C-alpha cells in the first residue's frame, strides 16, 4: 500500500531529517512509527501524503508515485492528521471544518450530512458542532482535526500522534475506532510516543533513529531488543517492567492481557509453584521459630 | 481616511466606480493566473490583504477637522506582490472595513479604491522602482514607496472630498485647504509608513528571501 525507498530529506534550515529511509507497508497494516523527538517521524509521514517531496528516493502511496503533481490524487486516497491541530483546522465553525473535505470530494449534501454526523459521533464532539473553532479546548481541537479527516473516509489513514492530549476515554475510543476501521480493511499508520498503547493495537512497528530506520517488524522483533529501544529514547511498556521480577521469563508481556495470561499460565503450569512453596515453607518455619 | 458611505453624491460615486472596477478586474485576472501557477502564494496574498486591513485601520486624529487619518499599507503590498495584485488586496481590505467597522462605505468603495488601492499601490510601486533604478538600497527604496504612496493617496482623497464638498467655493481652493489641513498629521504618517514599509521589506529579505518575487525586487 505504501512503499518508501531510500528516502532522504534535508530541511531548508539545514537539518537532515531523513537519511535513507526504506519501508514497506502492506495493505491492511496497522503500523506504529516510533522514535525520539526529532528522529524524523513527522517528516516521514509528510512524505507519504506528498506534503514534502524527497530530494532523493521515492514514495509510492496507494499505487501512485507521490509527486507534486499527483498530490491531489494521492490525497483522495489518504487521510492525514497533523501533529498540531492548530495547523490543521481552519474553517469558521466545527461543522464547516468537518464538512470541508467531503464537500471537496464533490459529495451530495445529504451524504456530506451523514458523514458529518458520523465523524462527529466517532470523536464525541456532536455537542460542539456550532462552536467557532477558536472557542475549543486543545483536546477538542485535536478531536476535530481527526473528525475532519475521518469524514473523508480515506483508504489509508496517516496520523501524527493522534492520541496526544486526548483524555483517556477519548484515547481508548479513538484507538478502538482505528482498530475497527483497520479490521474493515483500512491501512493505518500512526506516529506515537505511547509505548503502552502500541502493543495493544499496532501489529507492525517501525523505529526511527536520527532519520534512519533502526528496526521495523512485528511487535516482538522490536520490543525484544531492549538495548536498541533505549537507544531510541523509548522504554518497554510499564507492565513489562513488573515481570522483570520473574527473571526466568522468556519474553516479557507487553500488554495487560498478555500479562494476565502469563500470570495465569504460571499458576497453571506451576512455574511459580516451587517459589511459592518455598516461600510458604519459609513463612511457616518463621512462624514456628517464633 | 476612507470616504464614508453617503458622503458622495450619486453621480460622483458612480463616476469613481467605473475606473475602480476596471483596475480591480485587471488585477483579478493577473491574480487568478498567479494563484493557478503558484498555489503556495496564497498565504502571502491573504496575509498582505489582512495587513492592509490592519494598517489602514490605525486611526490618528486630524487636528481641526475632527476626522481621523491612518497609513495605507498598499505600497508595501505593491512591492511584495506587484501593483495590480496590491490593488485587489486594497479593494478587499476596504470592503471588509466598510462592512465591519463602517470605515469607508459601499457606494464610496469606488472612490476609495482609486485613492488607496490604485493610487497607493501604483505611486508606491513607481517610487520603489525608480529608487531602485537610481541605485538606492532596498530599505531606502521601500521607504520612498511608503512616503510617496501615502501622500498620493491623500492627495487623491482630498481631491475627492473637495469635489464633493466644495460647495460654492472652487474645487482647487477647497482641495488645497483640505490637503493643507491633513498635512500636520499626514507628514508624520507618511514617515511612519516609510519606516514600516522599509522595516517589513528588509526583514523579509533577510529572513525569508524566498517569499519575495525575484522579478519585482530587481533594481
Amino acid at each position, binding site marked *: 500500500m505504501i512503499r518508501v525507498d531510500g528516502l532522504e530529506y534535508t530541511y531548508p534550515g539545514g537539518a537532515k531529517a531523513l537519511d535513507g529511509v526504506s519501508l514497506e507497508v502492506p495493505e491492511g497494516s496497522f503500523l506504529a512509527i516510533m522514535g525520539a523527538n526529532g528522529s524524523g517521524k513527522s517528516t516521514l509521514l509528510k512524505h507519504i501524503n506528498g506534503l514534502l517531496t524527497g530530494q532523493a528516493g521515492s514514495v509510492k502511496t496507494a499505487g501512485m508515485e507521490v509527486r507534486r503533481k499527483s498530490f491531489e490524487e494521492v490525497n483522495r486516497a489518504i487521510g492525514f492528521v497533523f501533529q498540531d491541530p492548530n495547523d490543521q483546522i481552519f474553517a469558521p465553525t466545527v461543522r464547516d471544518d468537518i464538512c470541508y473535505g467531503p464537500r471537496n470530494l464533490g459529495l451530495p449534501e445529504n451524504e456530506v450530512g451523514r458523514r458529518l454526523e458520523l465523524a462527529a459521533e466517532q470523536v464525541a464532539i456532536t455537542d460542539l458542532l456550532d462552536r467557532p473553532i477558536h472557542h475549543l479546548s486543545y483536546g477538542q481541537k485535536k478531536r476535530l482535526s481527526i473528525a475532519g479527516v475521518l469524514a473523508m473516509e480515506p483508504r489509508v489513514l496517516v496520523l501524527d500522534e493522534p492520541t496526544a492530549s486526548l483524555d483517556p476515554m477519548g484515547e481508548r475510543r479513538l484507538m478502538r475506532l482505528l482498530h475497527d476501521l483497520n479490521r474493515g480493511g483500512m491501512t493505518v499508520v500512526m506516529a506515537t510516543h505511547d509505548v503502552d498503547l502500541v502493543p495493544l493495537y499496532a501489529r507492525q512497528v517501525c523505529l526511527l533513529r536520527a532519520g534512519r530506520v533502526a528496526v521495523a517488524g512485528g511487535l516482538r522483533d522490536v520490543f525484544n531488543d531492549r538495548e536498541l529501544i533505549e537507544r531510541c529514547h523509548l522504554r518497554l511498556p510499564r507492565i513489562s517492567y513488573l515481570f522483570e521480577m520473574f527473571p526466568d521469563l522468556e519474553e516479557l508481556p507487553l500488554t495487560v492481557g498478555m500479562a494476565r495470561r502469563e500470570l495465569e499460565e504460571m499458576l497453571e503450569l506451576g512455574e511459580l509453584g516451587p517459589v511459592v512453596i518455598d516461600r510458604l515453607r519459609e513463612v511457616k518455619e518463621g512462624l514456628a521459630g517464633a | 481616511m476612507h470616504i464614508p458611505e453617503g458622503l458622495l453624491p450619486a453621480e460622483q460615486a458612480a463616476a469613481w466606480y467605473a475606473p475602480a472596477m476596471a483596475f480591480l478586474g485587471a488585477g483579478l485576472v493577473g491574480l487568478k493566473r498567479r494563484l493557478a501557477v503558484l498555489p503556495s502564494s496564497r498565504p502571502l496574498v491573504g496575509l498582505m490583504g*489582512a495587513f492592509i486591513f490592519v494598517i489602514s485601520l490605525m486611526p490618528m486624529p486630524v487636528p481641526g477637522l475632527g476626522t481621523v487619518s491612518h497609513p495605507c499599507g498598499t505600497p508595501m503590498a505593491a512591492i511584495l506582490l506587484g501593483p495590480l495584485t496590491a490593488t485587489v488586496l486594497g479593494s478587499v481590505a476596504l470592503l471588509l472595513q466598510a462592512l465591519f467597522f463602517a470605515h469607508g462605505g459601499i457606494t464610496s468603495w469606488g472612490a476609495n479604491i482609486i485613492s488607496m488601492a490604485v493610487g497607493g499601490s501604483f505611486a508606491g510601486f513607481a517610487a520603489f522602482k525608480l529608487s531602485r533604478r537610481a541605485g538606492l538600497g532596498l530599505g531606502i527604496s521601500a521607504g520612498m514607496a511608503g512616503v510617496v504612496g501615502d501622500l498620493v493617496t491623500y492627495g487623491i482623497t482630498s481631491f475627492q472630498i473637495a469635489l464633493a464638498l466644495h460647495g460654492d467655493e472652487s474645487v482647487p481652493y477647497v482641495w488645497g485647504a483640505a490637503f493643507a489641513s491633513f498635512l500636520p498629521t499626514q507628514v508624520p504618517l507618511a514617515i511612519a509608513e516609510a519606516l514600516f514599509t522599509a522595516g517589513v521589506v528588509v526583514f523579509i529579505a533577510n529572513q525569508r528571501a524566498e517569499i519575495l518575487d525575484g522579478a519585482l525586487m530587481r533594481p
Partner: protein
Amino acid sequence: MTESSGNNDNYAWGDSFLSRIDPRVKIVAVAGLLAVNLAGASYLVSAAIATFMALLMVLGRIPYRRQLLMIAFPFTFALFAITSQAVFKGSDIVASLGPFDFHLDGFYHGLFLALRIIAGGLVVVVLGVTTPLNRLCLALRWFRAPATFVEVVQLTYRYLFDIHAEFSRMHEAQRSRLGWSSAGAGLASSRMLGGSLFLRVYERGLRSSEAMRCRGAGNVVNGTLSPPGRLDLVAGITVSALIGCLIVLALGGPA
C-alpha cells in the same frame, strides 16, 4: 487577551431574525437602500432610512456598545461635513472667524449630508454585523462575483483572525515571562513581536493551507445556501415597500 475579543462574528453567529435572513435578500435590500439614500437627495429619505435601521438594530438586539463604536467613523465624518458645508456653501452669513464665513444654508446642507452619512453607515453596519462572512461570500458567488475576488475576501478575512490570534498568543506568552514588566523590556518585546508576527502568521498560514490542500482544497467558498424561506419573503417585501415609499417621498417631497 482572548482570541475572540474584538471581532464581529461573535454576533453574526448569534441567532436573531436578522442573521437568519438569506444573504442574497440582504444584499439586494442593502443595494436598494443605499441607492435611494444617495439618489433621493432628501433629508426625509435619509432620516427614514436611519430610523428604520436603528429600529432593526434594537429589534435584532445588536449589542449596544458595539453600535456606538460602529458609527464612530461615520460620525466624525458627519461632523466634518457639517463644518465644511457651513464654511464652503451658501450665502446666508451668520458668523465669521478670521478668513472663514459661516453660512446658515450651508450648515443645513451639511446637516443633510451628515444625516445621509449616518443613514448609509447604519445600513452597511447592520449588514456586516448580522451576516457571517462565509454566507456573504456564498451570496456574492451566487451573484456571479469573480471567484478569485471572493477567494481573496475569504483569505484576507481568515488571516485577520490569524494575525489577531498570533498577536494575542505572543503577547500572552511574553507577558507571562515578564516581557512587559518595564519600559525597556516592553520596547524589546514589542520589537520582537513586530518582527516575528509577520513570519509566524506566514508559517502558520503555510501549514494551514497545506492542511486545506490535503483535504482537497479547490474552491475556498465551500458550502451552499439553502433556498429562501418565508422569513426572506417577508423581509424582501418589507424592504421593497419601504424603498417604494421612499422613492415616492423623494420624487414628491422637498429636496
